């Protein structure tokens, strides 16, 4: 057991928590997802053979999200307010109401579009890296990002869709 591996994993945790939150939106559930991901990575470290640890961890996280978490999120009524109140440093420069609209619009995106957009816009992965993490070709990735942006635009300009509880 060399500590180098665990150190490398540890360095990725802030980014994994951030991405997990953008996927499941609720804080505790997002950390559960990260914990599952880390446990799996530590257990399967022998299967990690090449390249940097970070994309491998993201791949594990995405697969766990797809297989175990997205139904959980749909089943529960996600408290969107929590997601907005939780950040330690509330954003100052943005209009809070506009952010609420954006958050609702993000929550309404199909999972596959949110997975793609967040890897690029939040985590700053290159298109090639994001495609590899999601196991899709770059063309598919870009079309998902394009659709996500059109949808965010459509929903951001109007009132929140009827099926979402308004955030006050």
């Amino acid at each position: 057991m060399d500590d180098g591996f665990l150190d490398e994993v540890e360095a990725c945790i802030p980014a994994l928590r951030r991405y997990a939150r953008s996927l499941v939106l609720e804080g505790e559930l997002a950390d559960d997802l990260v914990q599952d991901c880390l446990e799996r990575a530590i257990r399967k470290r022998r299967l990690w053979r090449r390249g940097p640890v970070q994309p491998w961890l993201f791949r594990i996280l995405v697969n766990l999200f797809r297989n175990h978490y997205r139904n959980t999120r749909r089943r529960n009524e996600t408290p969107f307010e929590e997601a907005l109140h939780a950040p330690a440093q509330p954003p100052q420069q943005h209009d809070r109401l506009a952010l609420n609209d954006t958050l609702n619009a993000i929550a309404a995106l199909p999972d596959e579009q949110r997975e793609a957009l967040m890897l690029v816009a939040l985590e700053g992965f290159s298109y090639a890296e994001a495609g590899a993490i999601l196991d899709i070709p770059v063309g598919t990735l870009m079309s998902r990002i394009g659709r996500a942006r059109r949808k965010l635009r459509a929903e951001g300009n109007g009132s929140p869709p009827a099926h979402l509880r308004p955030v006050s």
Partner: protein
Amino acid sequence: MSKETRTIAEEQLHAYVDGQLAAEDRQKIEEHLRHHPADAARVNEWQRQNEAIQALFAPIGEETVPERLRPAVLARKKTSRHGRRWPAMAAALLLLALGGAGGWLARPLFGPPAPAGIQQASLVEEAFNAHRIYTVEVLHPVEVTANEKAHLAKWLSKRLRDPVRIPTLDGEGFALMGGRLLPASNGPAAQFMYEDKNGRRITLYTVRRDGGNQTAFRYARENGINAFYWIDGPLAYALAGEVNRATLQRLARSVYAQLEE
């Protein structure tokens, strides 16, 4: 402006917003935006979306990481939330690493008790049968083709009552053709088919195996078809093909690694 150039332009605009372009291409886009206000407005909108996403979620990356997520703490934990058994997996991998001997070495060391052994025989038997029946199909080798991979995985996961993942073997020269649902002696089974550029086909057969936990890889051969099979959690797998044993073992190892990832 032709339809094609407009499509390319849109992708380029996304790439510009996401910082994916080299300096030279960036300048070209900026030049383009100066003369196309509609595109400039779109780019501006997307940039504001990215800023909002950052404003919403970036602070989470600055938070103190909860104790329960510290790798040192997690590594000390003996059991996991899902209760997977690491020693059995390690044994399976070790046996694989031993090379060709792995298949039959597994039997005396990790062989299940007799009743489970009988089930195993039927698993590999059914996998061989399914392989023989469907790999010769020209018109309908699969029920759902690879371009509906997500749908295929969802459908079969539902029928097998456990998340079914479809490994990719492109790196090994085998492209996914698709898959189908099959009747097995104790419920539904799934078969995925792959083909290499010479038209050689291999199949991955998966069936629910209640009460099974983990076994090492086993090897079987019948009428020129080689197979590696194993149980992992609620599902049993068999990878079969008319390829040599070493190649098939390499493929089985890749499948196993992807299913565990």
